[in-house]
């Protein structure tokens, strides 16, 4: 159908598969490569991977649903990762998460990543981001924000919105991480 894999991605997959004694051992690396290319792992990608590695699609689905780093839906323009491990939890990260969810119209009780209706933000809890001394910590795409407060979160969300508007107006490619 319309799902197609560019030649260079397939070549990358082939080289990954070649690194392992058995094709099936490459499955996690192959999925990473596909996610990198497509932004998420679609059913077509799961089925293609299964065929490629001599597996059944359910075997691949088990992995994709097990590892939180694999996404099955495209993520928003801004990916907010809120640490919920001990230091951050004590410093109020759950309140921050709830606040963000409420501002973006998401359900704070729902497990797993959620994307806002406008497709701009994806919010999820993650485990320790290795910056416990400056808890609570939130990552926005690849940038780390430390000692976050409700006010700073509001500011961050506004800046993201603003950045996005500029990008659209200026026709800028939205390829790179947001730097406030």
């Amino acid at each position, binding site marked *: 159908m319309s799902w197609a894999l560019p030649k260079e991605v397939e070549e990358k997959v082939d080289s990954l598969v070649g690194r392992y004694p058995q094709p099936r051992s490459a499955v996690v690396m192959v999925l990473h490569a596909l996610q990198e290319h497509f932004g998420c792992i679609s*059913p077509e990608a799961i089925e293609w991977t299964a065929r490629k590695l001599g597996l*059944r*699609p*359910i*075997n691949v*689905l*088990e992995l994709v*649903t*097990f590892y*939180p780093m694999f996404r099955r839906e495209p993520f928003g323009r801004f990916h907010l990762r809120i640490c919920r491990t001990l230091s951050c939890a004590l410093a109020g990260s759950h309140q921050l998460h709830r606040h963000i969810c409420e501002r973006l119209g998401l359900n704070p009780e729902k*497990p797993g990543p959620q994307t806002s209706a406008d497709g701009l933000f994806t919010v999820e809890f993650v485990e320790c981001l290795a910056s416990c001394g400056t808890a609570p910590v939130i990552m926005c795409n690849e940038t780390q924000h430390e000692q976050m407060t409700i006010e700073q979160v509001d500011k961050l969300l506004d800046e993201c919105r603003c950045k996005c508007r500029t990008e659209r107006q200026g026709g800028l490619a939205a390829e790179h991480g947001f730097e406030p």
Partner: protein
Amino acid sequence: MKQSQQSNDPLASPPGMISVTVDGRTVLVPRTMPDWQGRQVPTTMLQACELAGVTVPHYCYHPKLPVAGNCRMCLVEYGVPALGPDRKPVRQPDGSLVIKKSPRPAIACATPVSPGMEIYTSTPTVKLMRQSVLEFLLINHPLDCPICDQAGECKLQEYSVEYGRASSRFAETKVHKNKQIDLGPRIMLDQERCILCSRCIRFTRDVVGDDALGIINRGSYSAIAAYPGTTFDNNYTLNTADICPVGALTSKDFRFQMRVWFLKETMSLCASCGTGCNIVIGSRENCIYRFTPRQNDAVNSCWMCDYGRLNYRWIERTDRLTRPGGSKLTSPDWEDAINGIAAALKKAVPGHIAIVASARLTNEELYLVRRLAQFLGAPTDCVPRSGPADNLLLCADRNPNTKGAQLLGIAASPPGVNLPVFARLIRNGTIRSLLVFGEDVTRHGITADDLARLDFLAASDIHTNGTTAVSHYFLPGCAHVEKRGSFTNVHGRIQRFEKAVDPPGLARPELHWLRELVCRVTGQSMGGTVESVFEAMRAEVPAFRNIAWADLGDHGVATHG
């Protein structure tokens, strides 16, 4: 004294054996035992305990599946002989071994035994571990036993009663998963009841070779699933409902039909193909509710196919023959029918009579047909039936007793080759009388027009059919679930089955009226029970020589065929 100590020394067992102590009782167990595929592998603690008569509760372990070791229900404590600095076992002054108790428990299903090992299955620690495992399993469990089909044969219920806590300490919100997932055409899944033992996954992957199921998601959200858009549909899916220790996988055919504790269980066989899988029939008030496989390692292991399992509804069809009849019978009376047939047969001339008998009849019944055929000088044959075979159990021969019919000389070689010959001989007037037991020959090359040429036609079957409809006498027979007897499977194994339900109306087991017919026609006498006919058969037919009815037991024996 010294001598007896030596011979009791757990480290000096006979070759191939290991001495272990289970809860204080010392037993000798084989060093290796068959694994799920029958290969010899080191004996596990769980097997050793079983040999010592001690049950270790377990969920994920199944003797016919690869070991997964994921449920932790089988945790036990154990100790092994302590070794001194010289790597020699340390002994007490009286010569007995010093046992070093392991600080950690072990899963009995996956831990091999070693010489002198002591296994403790009822210590306070073991009891606490079982309680804790059950408590974890019940955290998100919906506790819907009152509406669950598994209730009454559920390991979660049974172990909770035996080893669990009286009440739950879990005050948080339970994770809810999906109920009533249509996993395939015959299986329903309730993800909330699943304890993730992976038996179903291993069965369909390793036994059937259809890797259709998996565990998706993580942690408390983990759930059994088939890949979206696919269905769990092979010919063995219903076995997963049997081995699922809880009510997560249920049979669509059986769910909500009957509480299992009301079912009467009858030892029987599947009659849908020549494999002869051993089964248990679950019935209540003369109505059959389910077939389930019964373990027989020489035939079907613990499994049966879905096709055979569900092939029972026809027994209750409304077009069953319920009384003797036919154009020459004025009233539906057995005595008149047998007398009428016997009188006609006495007049029949050898060479002008033939017999078609079904390979669905029992060995004993076919033996009676053989007696009749020998006396009448009648050629015989049966009707072959075939369908696609698979590589697990289902066999291409869809008759349960073709082999028996061959050993008894009823079936031609190959079965069915005589049928066109019979048709020709009827058309040219050679065959004047025909006896048909349990088949409709009009569907197998002998037309109703052919039958109309005969001087005499007697037939029996379970349902009305094209042959019974035009016969001078017809007799109502029984489904195998309505009678006792034995079948010989395609591999020559003779196995017996018992009666589960009564036949409808005046229908009687073929054995009863065939015996009357044989006695009436031949003037010989013979006992009327299955056992006595079997005795006569084994005295006469070499393939059954030296096999007594009692030898058949629950699992059958090989014939000499």
